[in-house]
């Protein structure tokens, strides 16, 4: 009997937790499909309405939605690919080569991982203006290539997964060092690439403060900055605002649901292992 009760309370806790996690998504969809006047009444709408298309058309007349999505894809994709390359290359050197100052440089990286990004915010902004990169996607992509965690992560993975013997035998066969990295190490560390790519892409996609500072012009807004523009629109239309938020959120949610095991293990593994 007590076993049944504990089983029921167990599921009750889990179901309530799951409902609380999912409810805001449902409610966002309800708002995105209802007219503002229905939303702004008591009791408010609690079922999906007929305004799915109209609300999204209003989004399009307020912001360049697809342009902003495009900018986000460009920024997140290029910096992710860049980080995979730079961090695996440097991580490979840190894991497998001996050179003077190696431990010092690696220690420096670990220390800067602890420094809050806001500390360098203002000088970074100054550098960007001096380079003439204000309102240029480069201003987000290039600093985004710096990822101390990425190097740390790659070094750990390469140290424990790429055997020295394999590298030595490749060298004896006359492979240059860069080819040893590319042909031997990279194929082995592809799983680490997947993890780092998910962490980095998500971070760049969701980043707000830095793009807000350097991407002022509407033509270079990422989707997060553009969404903020919806709130500041002349007429406060919640149906329209939530429609934009809904369509900006759904792609990532669908990708997550498809690959949720990989996503969850990547995003938490990265945190736990460091």
């Amino acid at each position, binding site marked *: 009997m007590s076993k049944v009760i504990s089983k029921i309370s167990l599921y009750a806790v889990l179901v309530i937790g799951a409902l609380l*996690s999912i409810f805001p998504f449902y409610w966002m969809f309800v708002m995105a499909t209802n007219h503002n006047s229905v939303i702004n009444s008591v009791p408010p709408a609690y079922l999906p309405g007929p305004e799915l298309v109209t609300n999204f058309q209003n989004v399009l007349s307020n912001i360049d939605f697809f342009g902003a999505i495009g900018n986000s894809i460009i920024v997140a994709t290029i910096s992710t690919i860049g980080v995979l390359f730079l961090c695996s290359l440097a991580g490979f050197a840190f894991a497998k080569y001996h050179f003077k100052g190696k431990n010092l*440089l690696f220690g420096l990286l670990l220390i800067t991982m602890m420094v809050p990004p806001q*500390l360098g915010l203002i000088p970074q902004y100054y550098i960007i203006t001096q380079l003439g990169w204000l309102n240029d996607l480069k201003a987000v992509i290039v*600093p985004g290539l710096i990822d101390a965690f990425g190097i740390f992560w790659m070094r750990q993975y390469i140290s424990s997964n790429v055997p020295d013997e394999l590298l030595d035998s490749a060298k004896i066969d006359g492979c240059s060092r860069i080819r040893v990295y590319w042909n031997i190490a990279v194929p082995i560390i592809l799983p680490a690439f997947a993890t780092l790519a998910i962490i980095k892409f998500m971070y760049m996609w969701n980043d*707000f403060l830095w793009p807000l500072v350097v991407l002022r012009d509407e033509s270079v807004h990422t989707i997060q900055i553009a969404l903020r523009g919806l709130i500041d629109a002349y007429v406060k239309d919640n149906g329209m605002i939530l429609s934009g938020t809904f369509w900006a959120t759904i792609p990532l949610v669908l990708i997550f649901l498809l690959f949720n095991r990989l996503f969850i293990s990547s995003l938490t*593994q990265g945190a736990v292992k460091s």
Partner: protein
Amino acid sequence: MSAEAHSPKRWNEKRKESLSGYLFISPFFILFAIFGLFPMLFSFYLGFQRWNGLGEMEFVGFQNFVFVMEDPIFWKSLWNTIIMGVLGTVPQLIVAIFLAFALNSALVKFQSAFRAAFFLPYVTSTVAVAIIFGVMFSSQDFGLVNVFFNVIGLDSVNWQTNEWGVKIAIAVMVFWRWLGYNTIIYLAGMQGIPNDLYEAATIDGATVWQKIRFITIPMLRPIIIFTIFLSTIGSLQLFTEPLIFLGGNLREEGITVVLYLWREAFSNMAFGTASASAIILFLIIIVFATVNSLLANKVFK
């Protein structure tokens, strides 16, 4: 070391290896020097200058720091940040332990579906979370939370202007987005706890609460310390939620330290005081992180 190690060929090989090492790390470190290290160090220089971002810099000694430390709004922002951080993370971590414990129970079916559901909020951007909850916590009577309040007989709350209303609304956003993330981290830790321990406790007649208190929490200690550390640092950097929730006018009820810094720099064009507040924030984070680890070591001993 063998005699071979001193042969010219071997020495040459060593030099080539270190050359490759430097070559492989240099693309990263060049970017890091320009966009990472230099800005951090330059902040410490800017903190002592008066500068509007365009004209000449003027050395003013500790004036910027004095200005920030004497500004009641700065202290207000620090207070807000700490309160919102505590409200958003303490209940969150506690609930996460219980959720993870429930999820880890051998009885549970559909474990991966629950995991995905709990994790979903973390995939949502902070901006989206702030927009969704911002509309829920609307100050109007038709705001979802106020509707609920009215149904259970409470008065509507002006969430956007009420001193505690702002903080609670923002704490809820933080709670919702990070709960599942920490649950999954705890769950990963719990899966490493041998099941015999729980079975032995069950035979001894331990309650669920006793199992959590005397088996789960001690075994999870390093992970709990780690999540407390991450949450503390994260909450001290709170920015997006209050900015979206309160809009550009930045009412004092919800201003945070990073918002203060951002406003000094990009609305007031006072880059010197902004840098000074960035340095102060950095020091605050160091203090909190240190106190955190000291306390954690004591409490969990």
